[in-house]
């Protein structure tokens, strides 16, 4: 399996985050080993927004946890390479990782209702990260925290510092999470399904907020989601993951215009579109459980409408397409077939 960068990446920009051949295997005693992430490679440049799309079980969340070193130690094997600004993270000692987390790389989690400590005030939870990374003095910390709350759009920030999480709504709590993550101005911000647990109306607001906050700064945003709608509005480049591997990747508008992998096409096909009123939605048949191991062929084969004999036997590798994307498929849709928007 070759790891190739998208050919349209200007070779002059250096990446802030380089993930190379990342493999994460879970092994609980007595059961089979599960390869949640199976040879994933990608890079992120400063200031860009990267989207990672996939269903649950595709390995996208595990990838993000692996980057920050938040996977449990027991029963988990991680191999490959993760370099943040040139520094290798995978074999770094815990003390160094602790200095990096929250400071150079930060994360926003999915469920704001459970991701905040219920017995500490909001202010404390923000100042705690400021003080730990020595970003400011103890005297300045409350003001900095209030400024952060203001930046993420929370009204009356000074008063809110003394509030407890249960006194805030879901949307506000997620804003607090974002404030905590950006407190030390990290180089990379990973957002793992940041809006999935929120009401639809709040979702748009929070995404707008994220977009605003990283615009014009060097902070790279890695947006992990199962929702293509989220990706469409926000990301420069997109990776589509299936069963632990990247199956398609490329620049956002190119990918959306010409999805070549049948899984990506399936994902797009199951999204309702305003300009196609009246036509039926085509969901992807089967479920994520109807899968075969990559060692036996293409994992998506059981659900793929275009499956051929060559799809079984060995895993396809990532190959470049004429539009400049990468696709992992021996029988992808042709350029003409893949044109989206003209069905």
């Amino acid at each position, binding site marked *: 399996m070759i790891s190739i960068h998208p050919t349209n990446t200007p070779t002059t920009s250096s990446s802030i985050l380089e993930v190379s051949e990342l493999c994460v295997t879970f092994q609980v005693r007595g059961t089979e080993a599960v390869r949640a992430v199976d040879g994933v490679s990608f890079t992120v440049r400063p200031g860009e927004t990267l989207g990672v799309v996939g269903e649950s079980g595709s390995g996208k969340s595990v990838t993000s946890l692996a980057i920050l070193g938040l996977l449990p130690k027991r029963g988990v094997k991680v191999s490959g390479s993760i370099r943040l600004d040139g520094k290798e993270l995978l074999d770094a000692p815990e003390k160094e990782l602790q200095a990096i987390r929250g400071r150079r790389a930060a994360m926003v989690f999915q469920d704001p209702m459970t991701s905040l*400590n219920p*017995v500490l005030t909001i202010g404390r939870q923000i100042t705690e*990260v400021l003080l730990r990374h020595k970003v400011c003095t103890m005297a300045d910390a409350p003001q900095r925290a209030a400024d952060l709350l203001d930046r993420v759009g929370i009204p009356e920030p000074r008063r809110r510092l003394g509030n407890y999480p249960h006194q805030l709504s879901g949307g506000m709590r997620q804003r607090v999470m974002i404030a905590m993550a950006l407190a030390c101005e990290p180089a990379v911000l990973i957002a793992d399904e940041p809006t999935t647990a929120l009401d639809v109306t709040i979702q748009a607001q929070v995404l707008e907020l994220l977009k605003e906050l990283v615009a014009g700064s060097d902070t790279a945003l890695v947006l992990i989601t199962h929702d293509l709608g989220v990706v469409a509005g926000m990301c420069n480049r997109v990776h589509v993951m299936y069963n632990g591997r990247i199956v398609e990747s490329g620049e956002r508008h190119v990918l959306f215009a010409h999805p070549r992998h049948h899984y990506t096409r399936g994902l797009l096909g199951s999204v309702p579109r305003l300009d196609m009123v009246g036509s039926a939605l085509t969901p992807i048949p089967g479920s994520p459980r109807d899968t075969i191991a990559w060692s036996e062929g293409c994992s998506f084969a059981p659900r793929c409408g275009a499956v051929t004999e060559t799809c079984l036997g060995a895993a396809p590798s990532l190959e470049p397409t004429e539009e400049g994307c990468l696709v992992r498929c021996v029988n992808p849709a042709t350029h003409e077939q893949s044109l989206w928007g003209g069905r």
Partner: protein
Amino acid sequence: MFKFILRRLLLLIPILLGLSFLLFVWVRALPGGPATALLGERATPERIAEVNRLYGFDQPVLEQYLRYLSRIIRFDFGQSITLRRDVTEEMLRRFPATIELSAAAMVFAVGVGVPLGFVAAKRERTWVDNGAVIASLVGVSVPVFFLAQILKMVFAERLGWLPSIGRLEPVRELQAHTNFNLIDSLIEFDRGAFVDTVKHLLLPGLALGTIPLAIIARITRASVMEVLNEDYVRTARAKGMSRRVVNRRHVLRNALLPIVTVVGLQTGLLLSGAVLTERVFAWGGIGGLIGGAVLDKDYPVIQGGVMFIAVVFVLVNLVVDVLYAVIDPRIRVH
């Protein structure tokens, strides 16, 4: 917060009323009636009739109850049949001994139990954890009076390392100010007495505290294990907080809630276990008094003792409730 405490204190009243009612009924359930409760079984019929008249036991029940209530409120439980002393006075004299013993046992149980449970939770499925689970199950199964006897047998009688009975060596004289020997010896600057008190506290405290220790360790382990899986612990780690800070500020503070509840409940176990332990070590507290009273059929003492201990138990649980609200801000809203 103040309103919270006040409201909880008010809730105490129906419980105490209910308790007094139960005891009222209880006394009248005795063979021979309430007069026997005051005089003992060997009372002559004349004495009984006299007492009935005196205390109004031949009056309508409601009147009796009200009179009884007025006595209880003034903490008047009558006279001990065997000791011929005022029950309340005797209780107050002996109470500090039981408190001292219970407090020592609780300090032991919490001081060892919580760290033990914490370590077991962090090292789930290792031998430390499995050992702790088994040890705590064994700890819960040991009868406290057996443990007390074994400890006494081994450490006091066989090895002679520690004294076997009493709170102080009989030859020692300690001026009784508060009846808390630890405090009194400090007041008197009597270092020898202090050390001696501690030596006497060790075995009974160990015996009494072992079962609560087992339970506290178990609940700590369960609670910490649950908290370790919570999302906010992951958030704290993702912020780069050091392990020690995560443990203290995020894990422990949230795990504390059920632990505090259990500690409150365990004081009940301590207070009742004191009855047994004090018997073995001839401790001289309320427990021993009640234990003896049961056989002597000294009903005023039993009545007074039960009421006393119940009040303490309820008050301790009130403190636990308040602590709960202090630890968990979500509870304060009510």
